């Protein structure tokens, strides 16, 4: 049990700072719609959005133009595009890497594995680390998803708990998948730098993959930003199940490697 506490303790500064950053950014973004409207170049954003591949697939160009103009004057759109569509998911990506990369690799780098392996089984070690780190990531996801609900109480936009739960769910499942990738790298590499580099490469590659039209459904970031939730008010259930299974698969593979590794 105290191994779990120690793992959480190890994460405390990074976790607290990331949580604080998330809440601060969230507060700033979500409370400043009016200010945002005055300072932003609407045309530029329009251009950017037009080029977004998933939007192009969902709606044709004509409708897109109309809808965009309408939407832009809609605070709900603002909330989605600036928070879930941009800042939050980027912060979560950062959190996933920062909270996970040294999970196993640091013990190997510092040679503290011998102490750990003498007193706890590999199963206990693996589970404590996974639970502690993903729990921390999940806390940040939860905070980021519920924040709009709270702020909406003081501003003139609507954001329901139901919506928070939907965005939160897609964020969590997508994050679990990306998290499992970082865990994998943290186990196979023996120093802490390589997992960071490898994770960043994979995250970027996943993004590039998604830009290839025809592979839209493979874009993890589409699910992470909750595009479909905004435009269709529903969760992509099939995709979520598939991503969840993939994540579990990678985690099981990581466990298998950890279980059989020589130290």
């Amino acid at each position: 049990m105290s191994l779990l506490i120690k793992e959480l303790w190890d994460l405390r500064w990074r976790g607290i700072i990331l949580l604080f950053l998330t809440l601060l950014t969230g507060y700033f973004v979500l409370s400043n719609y009016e200010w945002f409207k005055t300072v932003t170049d609407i045309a530029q954003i329009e251009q950017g959005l037009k080029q977004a591949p998933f939007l192009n697939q969902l709606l044709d160009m004509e409708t897109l133009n109309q809808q965009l103009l309408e939407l832009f004057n809609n605070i709900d759109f603002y909330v989605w595009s600036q928070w879930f569509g941009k800042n939050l998911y980027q912060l979560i990506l950062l959190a996933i890497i920062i909270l996970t990369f040294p999970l196993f690799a640091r013990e190997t780098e510092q040679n503290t594995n011998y102490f750990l392996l003498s007193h706890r089984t590999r199963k206990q070690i693996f589970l404590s680390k996974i639970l502690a780190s993903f729990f921390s990531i999940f806390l940040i996801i939860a905070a980021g998803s519920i924040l709009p609900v709270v702020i909406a109480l003081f501003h003139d936009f609507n954001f329901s708990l139901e919506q928070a739960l939907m965005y939160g769910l897609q964020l969590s499942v997508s994050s679990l998948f990306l998290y499992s990738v970082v865990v994998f790298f943290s186990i196979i590499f023996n120093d802490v730098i390589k997992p960071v580099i490898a994770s960043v490469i994979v995250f970027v590659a996943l993004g590039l993959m998604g830009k290839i039209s025809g592979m839209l459904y493979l874009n993890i970031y589409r699910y992470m930003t909750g595009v479909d939730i905004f435009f269709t008010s529903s969760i992509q259930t099939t995709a979520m199940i598939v991503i969840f299974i993939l994540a579990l698969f990678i985690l099981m593979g990581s466990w298998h490697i950890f279980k059989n590794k020589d130290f």
Partner: protein
Amino acid sequence: MHAVQIKELCKSYKNSSFTLQINDLSLEAGSIFGLLGSNGAGKTSLLKLLMDIVRPDRGYIEILGHRPSEREKLQAKISYMPENKNLYHNMTVKKMLDYASAIIPGWDNDKALELKNIFPLEGKKRISTLSYGEKTQLYAILTFARSADLFILDEPTRGLDPIMQEQMLQLIKEESWQGKTIIFSSHQLGEIEESVDSLAMLRKGHMVLNGNLDDLKSELFLLKLEKSKISAIPPSTLDIIATHHQHKQSLILCQGGMEARQKLQADFAFLNTENVNIKDIFLLLMENGGEEE
């Protein structure tokens, strides 16, 4: 009762083309067992295999009646001091000991206090600032401030000053007097000779000697012979384990008890048989690669 039994053990390391091979090794419960060998001989590998930190390619290991992989059952019974005595860099000594008391089964706070007197350390010091010797001291406290049936120690005295080395050996003996089994590896022949009752010598991954120390001293003897006289002895009369040729004389390590020695001396007047101690055995076996004992 055997504390440890090993049969047909084999472990290869692909990166370094080193292979550890132990065909038959048993340790009596309650004994102090010494593991000797040069660097890279395989001592640390063997101890890691006992702890399931490294897995064998094939072979049978039984430790306190269990397979090494049964860690849930063995955690409370085995205390391990690794060769690499690194601990969590950012923790202070005090925090490390607090954490240890929570995570190590059978932790004994009173014993920890006693040990802190023997191996004094400043509680506020960060582990990253400790010297190798100080890390060993800390690990000594972690290893002995708890109950265990078997202590596996990889170079427990390395880095310690002579007084603390002596105290470490004393700790080992005290545990042994209480019926615990101790395995420890060392480079220092002297301390091994004073503490262990049985030992094994490893050379390049093979076990070249194994047995009770007193028995080995009874059953092995040394012949110092001028080179010119070697031919005078028929080879069948000697059970030779290893030889070392110096400039004008040869040293021959032979197997044979008191009777054999007396007969030899009676038959060949010019022969001088001598007792051997660990240093003699070690130097002869390590230098010239004695084969299996």
